[in-house]
Structures are given as C-alpha cells and as structure tokens.
C-alpha cells in the first residue's frame, strides 16, 4: 500500500471516528498522543484499526508516545512491520 493511501486512510479514521470532526485535517507531524488529541480511551481502537486494515500488530505496551506520536511515525512503524 502506498504511503499516501495509508496516510489518507489513517487521517480519515482519526478525524471521523476518534476526534468526531470529519473535516479536521491531521498534519503528518502533529503530536497525537503527547498532545492528548488521542486520549487513552481510544488507543486500543487505533491499534485494532491498524491491525484490521494494514495487518500489523501493535502491542499494548507500545501504545505510548515513545513508540509513535505522529501520523508519520505511525506509518513508519506500520511499514517497518509489513
């Protein structure tokens, strides 16, 4: 899958399902976890979405800002495991 497609898919999911602001643009380097934009209640949802759509497992112990914080970092993590 191309990076652009993945970026579009993930930002749409984040804006629509997690932030409930469908029109909200997510910048590729925007801090998502450390800024509190994605709160801890939604970390599992994000991990399950990544697993279902990109076939990559993110362990619960990795669901923190030191593993990935931005969209770019999340995509890099997914690619490194595909």
């Amino acid at each position, binding site marked *: 899958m191309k990076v652009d497609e993945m970026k579009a898919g993930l930002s749409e999911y984040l804006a629509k399902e997690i932030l409930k602001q469908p029109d909200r643009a997510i910048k590729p380097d925007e801090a998502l976890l450390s800024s*509190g*934009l994605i709160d801890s*209640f939604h970390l*599992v949802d994000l991990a399950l979405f990544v697993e279902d759509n990109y076939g990559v497992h993110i362990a619960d112990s990795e669901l*923190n800002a030191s593993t990935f914080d931005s969209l770019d970092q999340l995509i890099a993590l997914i690619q490194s495991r595909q």
Partner: protein
Amino acid sequence: MPTFSDLLKSHYEQTPDKVSVTILQRGQPDCPVTYRQLIHGASGYVRTLEKNGVQPGDVVILILQHGIDLLYAYFGTILHGAIPSIMPFLTEKLLPERYRADLASLVEVTQPTAIITYSEFESEVRAALKPGEDSVKAVIISEQAEGPGAPDFGCFGGFQRKPDDIVLLQHSSGTTGLKKGVALSHQAVLNQLKSYGAAIHLDPADVFVSWLPLYHDMGLIACWLMPILSGYPLVIMSPFDWIRAPYLLMQVVSKYKGTLSWLPNFAYNFCAQKVRDRDLEGVDLSSWRAISNCSEPMRWDSHQAFYDRFRNVGLRYEALTTCYAMAENVFAVTQGGIDAPVVFEDVDRESLQVEKVARPAIEGLPTVRMLGAGKAICNTKVCILDAHGRPLPDRHVGEVALNSDCMLSSYYHRPDATEKAFLNGWYLTGDFGYLVDGELYITGRKKDLIIVGGKNIYPQDLELLAYEVPGVHAGRASAFGVFNDATGTEDVVLVAEVDSDDPAERQRIADGIRAAVTRGSAVALRYVHIVGRHWMVKTSSGKTARSANREKFLSEMQEKGKVF
C-alpha cells in the same frame, strides 16, 4: 472497635505467609506480597516517616503509581499513625504547570507534612512547594526509604490512634478551589466494611481483581482496603495497563479464579467492544460471582453487551450486579444483584421527566429502562427528599439523602462545605432518584457534574480553561455531558460564543479550546461547538445555564441530523 493498625498486626501474626496482594505490571512477572512482606515493607516507611519528623495525625500525600512502593508507603503511613492521601500521578497529556497548581492547592487545603514520590518526580513536586512557607517539611523519595524490616509494633504511632480518629483522606477531582478531601475515621471505614461485606456475602473463597485507580473510593475502599484489611486476596493491575489492554481483566480473573470486581459503567462497553477472541483463548470466567457496576450512571444495555460478549467464556448473568456508592459514606450505599438478579423496570418517560414520578410503562408510549441500584446496605438508611427537605413517597423522584454509622468525619479543613452537605443529620447526595420497596433507582443529578469513565468533572473547570483561548470571552462558554450509548459513558461537549464568522478562525478557536482543555484537565472534549454572539442561554444572575444550553445544543444537533 479495632483500628487499621490492629487489623494489620493481627494478619501479620496469624497468617504471615498468606498472599495479601498480587501486583501485576506489564512486562514484569506477577509479584505476590504476603502479609509478612507487607508489614515489613510498611515498617521501613514507618521509620522513614519518623526520621523525617512526621507525627501521628499529620497528613502525608502519596504520589506513586500502582506498585509495591505505594503498597508499603500507604500502610507504613497508617502504621505510623499519620493520614495518607493518594494523589493521581501526572499523565503525559496534562500540562506540568497545571499539575503543579493542582498540587499547590491540595497542599494549601490539607496542610500535609510530607509528600512521598519517586526520585524522577521530585523536581515536579518541589516546583509546587514554597519552602519555609507551606506545611511540607519533607519530600520523601521512595527509592531512598528505609528497607523492609521486622516491625516494632510497640513503638508505632498507629497503635495510639483511636477508632474515631481520622485514618485517611480521599480527594475529589475538582480543581477550581473546590478541592474537598473526604476525611474518614477508622470506625467509619470498618463499619462500612462490615455492612458491605455482609451485603455481598464475603466468603473465604473470594478473590478480588481490580484495575481501578486508588484515588477514587471504588478502587481505594472496595479493591484495596476491604480485601487487605479483611484478609482476602487481591490481584491488582494498573489502570494505565488495563486501558491499553482491556482483555487483561478477563485473563487475570481466569488465571486467579477471581470472584469479585467493581467497574464503572463505561468499562462494560469498553470490554465488550475491544476484547478480541484471540485474547480469550483458554479464558474461563465462571469463577466471577459479582461484578458491581458502580460510580457512574449504570445502564441495562451495558450489562447486556458485556454478558453477550463473555457468556461463551463462562460469564454468568447472575454475576452482573449493581452498587450506588460515594466517598462520603466511605463507599457503598446500596448493593443489588447479590441475593437475586439485578432488577430493572420500564417506566413511562413523560411522567418521569415532567411529573417526576416513575410510573410503570403505558403501552404504546415511550419508556425509559431503569436499572435498580439495589437496596441500602444494613447500616445505611436512604430516603428521598423534595426541594423543601420533606420525605417523598415511593416512585417520586427527589434528592437522595442518607444516614449511616459510616459517614465522613468532615471535609478536611472545610467546615463550610461539611455544614452545607447535611440537613438534620441526613447527608444530601446531590443525586436524584426514587425508591420502590427499598430498591433505589438513580435518575440524574442536581449538580452540573459530568462523569466520564467514572471520573467526576466539574464543568466550570473546563469553561475556565476555554476562556484562556484568545477569541473566547469569559462567561461565554458552557460545558456539559451528553450520554453516549455506544461507549456507555458521557461525552463532554463545550459550546463557546465567538465574535468571528470566519470558518478558519472558528476552527482555530475550536482547536485551541480542545488543546487548552486536554492539557489543562486531562479531559478530552468530544465535541466543540462554536456559535455566534447571543447564543448562550443565561440565568438571571448572568451565569451560564448549563442544562438549558445542553438542551439547545441537542435540539440544534437533531435539526442537523446528528444523533447524540
């Protein structure tokens, strides 16, 4: 009447090798702690507190994560005769400055003599203090505390404490100068444990399993003090680990044959939706005999979703129970579902909302399904009062009031708040509800309190944060909760009036509000609604009328076809 110290000593002497607490931490082996280890570890803290000049009766604030240090420090403080109070740990999304301000206000009200924390957090704590001016004599670093050792009970200050002395403080989560520490005596806590233990039929085979935070009554009383002081095994994990891996709860119940747990309503939906089949392989939940829904409005739908999800791994329907509780009564007020399945009833919506009477459903008309919170535990009396403080008959909605032998001693250093909370000896809960043959149903609350995932949030705290955003004027924001059926808890909505009509500017303000609220309160706003001038409904005093604004918001959303 014994005190906490007497009970701890008795477990130490009679069952030293019994495992009291098993601490689970991700990435580490399970850590069983016997009563001997617990008392030896706590004794190290008694010596540490003594060295640091902490006297019996002094307040000690603990800022530690779930783990062995917290266990030893908490009970060490009690054995020393000092008064522990657990403060939440700083999370990464909360602004450190905000945390410091919160800690500083806690210090001002409760006048603690010492704070116990980790070395890595010391600078954070010191930044909130005013050396020489405030009450804090020592910041104790847990890594530098005295090591475990045999107790010298004869010298421990805890044994000089009397049953009606204050044993612990529990703090509410409000920040706007509303911080109220609920002060509880040994006697009140032990009276609660006795009555509540009888209500849930505590049995020698019981095993408690919990992921709950300990700065909240549900975690602190039901899943910490009750098992440890009464001698039942407790298996405990951190809320940080559970929220990232909700299946841990099921795996741990299965592994340790857990029988009792307490959960806020959202956790039923959360587990039902987010636990995958692969994480349930080999899991058997048939040991679970009572999972009490407690601390936020409880829903029949949530129980059903949880049961449907886990029935095929042994969950029994009878295990789903309910509880209405508050820190001011130490913990439980009522318990349902133990002697018979939890009751629910469908009532006529119109009568409930307009006449404030819960009449049985009328065919063809809209209904509301109410889940019973159970009957009052044996030491607690519950009544429903009208606006003038007069008792109401069954099925009439009014304020829930209670009276018991386990009430708070006071709001610590807040005589004003203590006096306001009582009417002729009855504690006014601020919750609305009705009774039917002793069964209590909770319908709503008097205060504009928002409860998200079991955590109490004061809307005025969020509004104050919104006012910090350029473009939002003071007095022109309103925060409230809207129940979300999918998550089983409230979504937080904030409406703000702005002068600008420019969509880009409004988006910038909305983003600013989200960031300010999240970083300032650790609460994520689910919806920020930016409106033009004169939108807000105000009360005669000029304050925002949150419930009226909530209704207005919901009807606007309905017009736009958005369902809340």
